């Protein structure tokens, strides 16, 4: 799981949890508020006969202090509620006088309406709720980490599955030489193939067969190519003729040997580009320092016995 995916998953889980929690809190608060409003109204209605409110008919001024004291004592029982009673009045209250958080409720009595002014505290980010958001943050982190662990386990199982057969039957790289279309390729990626000309192809095939049989031999540029090798090359050339690749007469494999080897090397370079360590086996050694004409240099495939060559259309 990449870091970006990790963060994305984490924030998604957290946002969903928080959103659901928030909606739930709002929903429950609304219901609780409605219920508590009714309970407060009931209590005020019960106390209304003893509440000294102004009365216009009786020219009664009312006892403001007593009403304020009553509201205070009522509010002291509303500490856990998000509702508060701001005022109880027998007069009319215009909507403009109310603050944003206030709303009114009207009790109809035989002596005229009594208006209760409530104020509501719609504060959903209380310390208690904040604790929950923190809790969700931890849960999201936990779940994301868990998902990450599960995913990496799964992918390692998959990797094992794909690696296991290779591990149980190790398949070293095999060089595939196809005579039918004169190409070089290898077993790991058969699509990546390189076409060789007739002469280098035949010579390389002959060199492989010759060196497999005579691993100790030293093939020197100064000397002529051994007859046995020439014969093998000719044999492969006949095969190519048989396959209809050429009608020309066979080339002289002794001529321009260096050029032929170069073409072979170029082809192998291309095919074994990604596996340079395999070149040691299949690559006709180049001369370093001593010069290609040196007596010491041999273009023989010394390690070819360790190699694995598959010839198609032999």
């Amino acid at each position, binding site marked *: 799981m990449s870091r970006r995916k990790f963060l994305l998953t984490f924030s998604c889980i957290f946002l*969903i*949890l*928080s959103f*659901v*929690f*928030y*909606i*739930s*809190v709002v*929903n*429950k*608060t609304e*219901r*609780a508020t409605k*219920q*508590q409003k009714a*309970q*407060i109204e009931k*209590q005020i209605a019960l*106390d209304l006969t*003893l*509440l*000294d409110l102004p009365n216009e008919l*009786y*020219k*009664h*001024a*009312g*006892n*403001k202090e*007593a009403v304020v004291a*009553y509201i205070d*004592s*009522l509010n002291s*029982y*509303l500490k*856990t*509620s998000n509702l508060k009673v701001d005022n109880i009045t027998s007069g009319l209250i215009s909507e403009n006088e109310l603050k944003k958080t206030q709303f009114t409720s009207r009790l109809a009595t035989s002596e005229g309406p009594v208006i209760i002014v409530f104020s509501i505290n719609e504060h959903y980010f209380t310390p*208690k*709720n904040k604790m*929950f958001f923190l809790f*969700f943050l931890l849960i999201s982190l936990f779940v994301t980490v868990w998902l990450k662990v599960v995913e990496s386990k799964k992918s390692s199982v998959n990797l094992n599955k794909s690696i296991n057969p290779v591990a149980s039957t190790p398949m070293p790289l095999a060089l595939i030489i196809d005579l039918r279309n004169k190409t070089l390729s290898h077993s790991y990626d058969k699509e990546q193939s390189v076409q060789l000309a007739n002469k280098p192809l035949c010579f390389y095939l002959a060199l492989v067969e010759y060196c497999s049989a005579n691993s100790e031999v030293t093939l020197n540029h100064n000397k002529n190519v051994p007859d046995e090798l020439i014969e093998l090359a000719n044999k492969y050339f006949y095969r190519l003729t048989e396959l209809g690749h050429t009608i020309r007469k066979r080339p002289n494999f002794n001529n321009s040997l260096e050029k032929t080897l170069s073409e072979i090397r170029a082809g192998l370079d291309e095919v074994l580009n990604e596996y340079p360590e395999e070149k040691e086996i299949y690559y006709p050694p180049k001369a370093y320092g001593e010069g290609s004409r040196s007596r010491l240099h041999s273009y023989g495939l010394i390690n070819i016995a360790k190699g694995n060559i598959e010839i198609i259309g032999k």
Partner: protein
Amino acid sequence: MVFAWMCGQLIVNDDELVFPILIETSTVCSTSATANDNELIVFTPSKNIATELSQKLCDDSVVAKQYGSVIGYWGYKTSDSLEFVGKGIADLILAKNNIMTAFKAESTYNYMPVVGFSDYTAFFISSKEKPIISKSYFLDKKIGLLDYPTSRSGHILPKQVFKDLAINIANLNITYASSHNELRDLLANGKVDIIASFWKESDKDRFSKNYITPLSNNITGTRWYLKMQQNNTDLLCSVQNHLMNMSKGQALHYYQNVTAFWLCENNTAVFKVGENNE
């Protein structure tokens, strides 16, 4: 998600609101004679006095011999005192003598005055000039009166003055207040030009004594009455004693100035002051 929803549902408090009795109108205490079912009922317009007096009576040994408990009621509204006086519910009641007279409570229930506060004078009080008792003076003034009809200085007497001057009360600009203190606030804040009330010493700080005009002299002060259906002199003397002691602790000068109506000596009680000072 379900978990988050449940959390939201559980965290919001929706406990049912439970209110106790929010407006109390009485206090009860027991005497040492808990087996006695008799209740001594006390009524006073003030909560503090009702509480204090009830407690004192509960601790009293004479009361304990006759009653198991003392209930102190205080009026929350003016009409409460009318019920108590008119129906003779209270054994001991603090009331104005005009109300006692109105209900003929003294003869009906045999209420006897025990302790009385001194008589006083009602005034028109202004902040800027000495009020003149004349029709033309009152007509363009804003007047502050008390809203309860049992008040003599703040309601009955000023209205009598207006009637005597042949002023239609409907033509006057009257503002009603619920207490004498509220009336004083109205005057001090310039909401009214004149108020009708009594004069107390502390008024000097807010108003001038030169700008008051008396309405009527010798308004009989409020009195404590005891229902004397038996010749229960022990209780009478004990109650009088408590009331006299309590008045000494009152903050207002007016309430400290009390008269005892009975002479309690050698286990007898003799009525010493006549009720001829109406």
